[in-house]
């Protein structure tokens, strides 16, 4: 029983990271109907920025905040420069663009920082808590993620810009008639997604160690989480990510060799697509005419 709880909590810590990245995927999907295959590599690149800043002597949280801001601006720039030209192109063209982006970031990181695995210190000490049920590090990761998600939901729920972003994603033509600058909202969406991804990358780097391929597996788990939650639902993405984290950890501990854990994500993706394409919280597009 004790071990089970332990595995659940450590699964939640991993799940919090998948949840963040899944949320980033969902935000971009809702805004631009596009699955951003570069989300993981963008996060990885952001993590290198944080690592550089920490190595330059900045305190961890200073580096964290600067990296999030830089990623926000970088995400906006990517939307403007790379995504906007294919906005009205067939969806496959846009997907290929995001895959290209992923390759670019991966190679760029390898070129600048080399493919050598780097150690990234966690800001949280690794001490057992509550009779070794959970470590302070896992608790820290869960805490940071929850704070970030809370701020994000508050932003979308209570601010005029957040509301305008939701409107622009839902009905761009009507949003324009309300005076919403839809293009700018999409850019902000990409910026926010990049910043969330950056936080996820920084939180996961101490566990996985930093290298240019660090986020490959994480992105697959995040996809599984996003699909499980229903690719259109932000709340679903968060819950889906957490479920994937816990499931992966439990299955890896009790049922199969942990080397096969990634299979769980793929199996989940296939199961969801076959039996419940709208996920747990997604909605089929319906409209009254």
């Amino acid at each position, binding site marked *: 029983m004790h071990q089970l709880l332990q595995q659940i909590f450590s699964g939640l810590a991993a799940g919090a990271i998948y949840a963040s990245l899944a949320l980033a995927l969902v935000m971009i999907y809702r805004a631009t109907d596009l699955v951003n295959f570069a989300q993981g590599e963008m996060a990885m690149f952001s993590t290198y920025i944080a690592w550089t800043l920490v190595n330059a002597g900045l305190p961890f949280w200073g580096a964290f905040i600067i990296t999030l801001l830089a990623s926000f601006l970088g995400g906006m720039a990517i939307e403007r420069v790379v995504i906007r030209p294919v906005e009205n192109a067939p969806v496959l063209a846009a997907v290929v663009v995001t895959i290209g982006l992923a390759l670019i970031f991966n190679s760029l990181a390898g070129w600048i920082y080399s493919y050598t695995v780097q150690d990234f210190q966690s800001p949280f000490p690794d001490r057992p808590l509550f009779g070794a049920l959970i470590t302070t590090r896992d608790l820290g990761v869960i805490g940071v993620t929850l704070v970030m998600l809370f701020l994000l939901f508050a932003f979308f729920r209570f601010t*005029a810009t957040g*509301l*305008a972003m*939701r*409107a622009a994603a*839902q*009905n761009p*033509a*009507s*949003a*324009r*008639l*309300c*005076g*919403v*600058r*839809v293009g700018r909202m999409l850019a902000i969406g990409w910026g926010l997604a990049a910043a969330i991804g950056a936080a996820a990358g920084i939180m996961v780097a101490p566990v996985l160690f930093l290298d240019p391929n660090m986020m490959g597996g994480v992105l697959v788990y995040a996809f599984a989480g996003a699909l499980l939650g229903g690719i259109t639902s932000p709340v679903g993405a968060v819950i889906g990510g957490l479920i994937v984290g816990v499931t992966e950890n439990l299955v890896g501990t009790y049922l199969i060799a942990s080397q096969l854990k990634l299979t769980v994500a793929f199996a989940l993706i296939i199961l969801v697509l076959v039996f419940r394409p709208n996920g747990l919280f997604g909605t089929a597009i*319906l*409209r*009254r*005419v």
Partner: protein
Amino acid sequence: MAPILQLRAVKAFYGQSEVVHGIDVAVEEGGMAVLLGANGAGKTTTLRAICGMVRSEGEILFAGERLDRRTTEEIAGLGVAHVPEGRGTFIGLTVEENLRLGGYTRGGRPQASMQRMYGYFPILADRRRQQAGALSGGEQQMLAIARALMMAPRLLVLDEPSFGLAPRIVEDIFTIVERIRQEERVSVLLVEQNATLALELADHAYLIETGYVVASGSAKALADDPQIRRSYLGY
């Protein structure tokens, strides 16, 4: 008094094809003008041209400003509120959020204007926390008009507000539109299939056929024209 909206030799396009072939339309300050005509005549396209949603040529003047070559967002910011065909409801947002969006260009706290809208449309107040997609067609039309008025516009552009609604609800909506026009001092440009009702309310009317204005004048004159009566009013 100068018209608040004036179209001079306006052509409008869908992609490459010209749908509206150089029309002149004016809306008087505080007045209500109606565009009549069959389906596909170019009425909706004309409204879209005004709001920069389709490519246009010619001059579109609103309160002394050129609207042509401006973006839809800028035009909304100038005080043109367009209730589009299909109502443009944000179905996944609540009624209240739809109204807040209407007030987006004005910034600040929308509470006072929202209360005024609930005064015109009490049913919206009852449903303020509901998803807008769950409203009936008539309620969605009221919401669309209220959303547009939240902008405190100088010109209200209505594209077939009666579409798909029961006759009694249509009358309710037009009664409120008329009241709003006087109380909010807003000019109205209306596209409407229900010619009888539209000619009763409007002061000026334009009859559009295949992209041309084929008749125009005071609403009363058009309503009395025997040929128009036969073709559009059915008596």
